[in-house]
C-alpha cells in the first residue's frame, strides 16, 4: 500500500536541503511503530520518495512524501503517529492510501515575496518580455527564456513587499523559482519563496 503523506516544511526547515530532509523523514518514520516497508539488501531502509524536491531556502505547505506500508492502520492513526514523531517545522496535514504510485508532478504554485524599489506594476512590466537566464542542469549550462514557463502570474503589494504568485513547471521539466530572482537581479531581491500547491 502506498502512503501519500502531505506535510508543511516551514520555519528553520527551509535551511535544510532536500537530501537532509530525506534522512530526517526516514528517521521520523523509524520513530513511529508503523508497519513501514523496507528495502532489501545490506543497508535496509524505508522506501521513500517525494512528489517534488523543494530547494533549500524555500518553504512549502504542500509537500508529499510517499512510502509503503504493509497492513496499515486507518489513515487517521497513521496521521497521528506521523505527527507525534515530527520535528519542529514539519507538520503533517493529511494521509491518503493508494494502490497506485503517485503520478509525476506536472507543476507547482509559488508565492514569491520580493523587496524592490519598483512597484508591483514596475516588476510586472520588467517580466513582460523574454526572460533570458543562465540555466544549469546536470548536463549543461545554457541561456533559456523562462518567460513562457511562468504561468498564472498575479502581482500584489503587501506590507512585507511585493508578492508574485505563479505556477511553474515541475517534474522532469522543473523550473526553480529562484531563476525569477536571478532574472530580476538588481531590480528586486527575493525575500522568501513559499510553495502552495502541487499539480499532478
Amino acid at each position, binding site marked *: 500500500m502506498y502512503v501519500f503523506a502531505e506535510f508543511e516544511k516551514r*520555519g*528553520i*526547515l527551509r*535551511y*535544510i*536541503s532536500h*537530501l*537532509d*530532509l530525506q*534522512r*530526517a523523514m*526516514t*528517521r*521520523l*518514520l*523509524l*520513530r513511529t511503530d508503523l508497519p513501514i516497508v*523496507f528495502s532489501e539488501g*545490506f*543497508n*535496509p*531502509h524505508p522506501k521513500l520518495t517525494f512528489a517534488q524536491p523543494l530547494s*533549500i*531556502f524555500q518553504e512549502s505547505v504542500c509537500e508529499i512524501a510517499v512510502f509503503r506500508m504493509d497492513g496499515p492502520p486507518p489513515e487517521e492513526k497513521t496521521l497521528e503517529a506521523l505527527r507525534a*514523531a515530527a*520535528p*519542529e*517545522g514539519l507538520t503533517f496535514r493529511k494521509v491518503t492510501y493508494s494502490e497506485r504510485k503517485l503520478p509525476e508532478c506536472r507543476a507547482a504554485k509559488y508565492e514569491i515575496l520580493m523587496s524592490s524599489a519598483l512597484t508591483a506594476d514596475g516588476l510586472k512590466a520588467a517580466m513582460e518580455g523574454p526572460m533570458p537566464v543562465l540555466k544549469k542542469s546536470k548536463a549543461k549550462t545554457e541561456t533559456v527564456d523562462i518567460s513562457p514557463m511562468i504561468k498564472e502570474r498575479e502581482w500584489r503589494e503587501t506590507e512585507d513587499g511585493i508578492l508574485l504568485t505563479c505556477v511553474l513547471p515541475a517534474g522532469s521539466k522543473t523550473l526553480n523559482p529562484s531563476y525569477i530572482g536571478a532574472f530580476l537581479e538588481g531590480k528586486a531581491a527575493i525575500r522568501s519563496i513559499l510553495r502552495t500547491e502541487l499539480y499532478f
Partner: protein
Amino acid sequence: MRDDRYAELLKNVEKPGRYVGGELHSDWKDPSEVDTRICFCFPDSYEIGMSNLGMRILIGCMNRMDGVFCERSYAPWPDMESQLVEHNVPLYALESGDPLGDFDMVMFTLQYELCYTNVLNMLKLSGIPMYASERGSGYPLIVAGGPCSYNPEPLADFVDVFSIGEGEEALPELVELYRQCRKEGLPKEEFLYRASRLEGFYVPSLYTPEYGEDGKLSAFRPNREGVPAKVRKRIIEDLDHVYFPESSPVPYLDVVHDRVMLEVFRGCIRGCRFCQAGMVYRPYRDKSPENLDACARASVANTGYSEISLTSLSISDYPRLPELIDKLLSWTEPKRVGLSLPSQRIDAFYEELMTKVMSVRKSGLTFAPEAGTQRLRDVINKNITEEEILSACGKAFDGGRNTLKLYFMNGLPTETDEDVKGIALLAQKIVDLFYSVKRSGRSVGVTVSVSCFVPKPFTPFQWDAQDSLEELERKQMLLRGEIRSRKIDYKYHDARVSRLEAVFAKGDRRLGEALAEAVRRGQRFDAWDEYFDYDRWMKIFDVCGIDPAFYANRQLSEDELLPWDFIDIGVTRQFLLHEREKSRRGETTPDCRTKCSGCGAVTLCSGPCSCTEGRNA
C-alpha cells in the same frame, strides 16, 4: 532559533543548517525565565561537534538544573565567519540566537590540540577579549575541559577555569558555586578562588610558573594562600547511575558520527605506552548490560537512528560483551537497527560475534597493530603477537571479508628502519594469507594507515622527543618504497600537522602568545588540510620567540618539572617512569585484569579498583 534575525547572513552560506539549531530534541527554555545562561561550545565545525557524545552528556546534565539553560555553539565555517564579520554580527548560540557575550558562562570542550585557535577565534568573533586578564565582570566566564585539559597550559592565559576529568558532577557544582557567589555579590576573583578549591578545577591565574635560564620550567606554585598545589581529576565512580542522553538533538545535516553512541565503559585495562586516553581515563569502570540495553532502546525510539555504535577505548575488553550483544540483537534485528563495534583488539576478535553483529548491516573492519615488528610492539606494550594479528585477519577473511584497515604509527620511541620496513612486511603477509586459500572471484584490499607518533602528557612516553620533521618524512618515504603489492593501499599523515600537535600537547604557558598571534593573523581550523598552514605557524613561532623544537623534539630529563605535573590523574609519575624503563628493555606489562600493575588509579575510587575486583571479577 525561534526567529529570523540572521536570515540575511544565512542566505550566503553553504550549509545554513549548521547555524540554526532547532533539531529534534534540542533543549529549549525561555531565557527570560532562567537565572543562569551557559553556552557550550565545540571549537570545530557543527558536523564534528554534533558527533561528540561528551558534549551531549554535559549539556544534558546542566539543562537538568532548574534555572539553568545551556545552549550550543560551534566554530563557524569560514564562509559564515565572513558573513558575521561583514554584517558586524557577533557569534551566537544556536538555541536562542543570542550572542555569546550575553551569557554567564561560555564553556569549551578541548578534544584535540589543533582546535586551540578555534577557541580563541570564537571568542574573537564574539567580541569577548581573548585574554582572561582583559575580561572584567561584564564578560562571561570562560570554562574549558575535555581531554586536552590534562595539559591546559597553552590556553592558561585565556581560560578562567579548567575542569579536569569527567564533568557530569563537577560542572553542575561549578554552576552552583557561580550562582552562590553571584547571590552573595562576590567579585569574579572570589568566585575563581573558591572554584580553585573545588576538586577537579584549575584556575590558571592563581598559579605562577617560573622558568630557569635554560628555558625549562623551574617552579610552578599557587600564588594565593589556600589554593591547592595539586589539582586532582574527577571521575564518576558508578556509571550505571550517571545521566545518559537518551533524547538528545538529532541533526539534520550529515554529521560525522550520525548514530546512537552507546558508551559501554570508561578507562582501559590495557596500558599501551603511547596512549594518553589509556592513562588519563583510568580506572576502568563499566555499565551493566541491562542499563545499556535500556539506554539503547530508549535512544533508538527517541531518535529513529538505525545504527548503534558501542563506544569505548577497546570494546572487546568489556567482560559481558556477548551478553550485551545478545540482548541488543534480540530487538535490533527485527527493527533493522545495525550494531557497530569500533575499537576491537586483534587478540580478542570474535568473528562469530562480528557475524552476528553484521546480520543487519555490513561495516568496515579496522585493526591497530600500531607497530610493524614484535620488538616495537613490546616497547609500546601493545601486547599482541604477529600470530594473533594473522589469526584475526584469517578469521575475518574466512568470515567473508576482503578488505581490512590497519593502523600504524611512525616515529615511536626506539623505532629503527627495520621496524618501519616491518609494517610493509606485515601488510604483505596479510595479503599473502588471503591468497593462501582459494577464495572464489574476489580480490583483497589492505589499507595501511600510518600516523606520526605525538608524545603526550601523562603517558610513559611523555619524556620522549618526537622525531624531527625530516626524520618522519624520511620514514614515510622509506615505507612507501617497501610496499610493493598493489593490494596494499598506503596512507600516511602529514608529519607537519603532527609536529604542531606535539608542540601544543607538551607546551607551556608561553605558547599562549603564539596562539593569540595566530588568531590575530586569521589562523584557525588547523585540523583541516585546507586551512592548515605550517609555514605560517613557523613564522608565528619565530615572531613570538618560540622554538617549536624545544617542545616537540627535545628529550626531557626524568627529573624535569613538567608543565602538567600539578595535575593528579590518579596514575602516578612513578608508574609512568617505571613503564618507560620497561619499554626500553622491551618488557611488557600485562593488562589490569590479568595482573594489577599498581598504576595508582585505585586511589580515585572509594573501594577497590573495578578493573580487577567488584562486579566484573
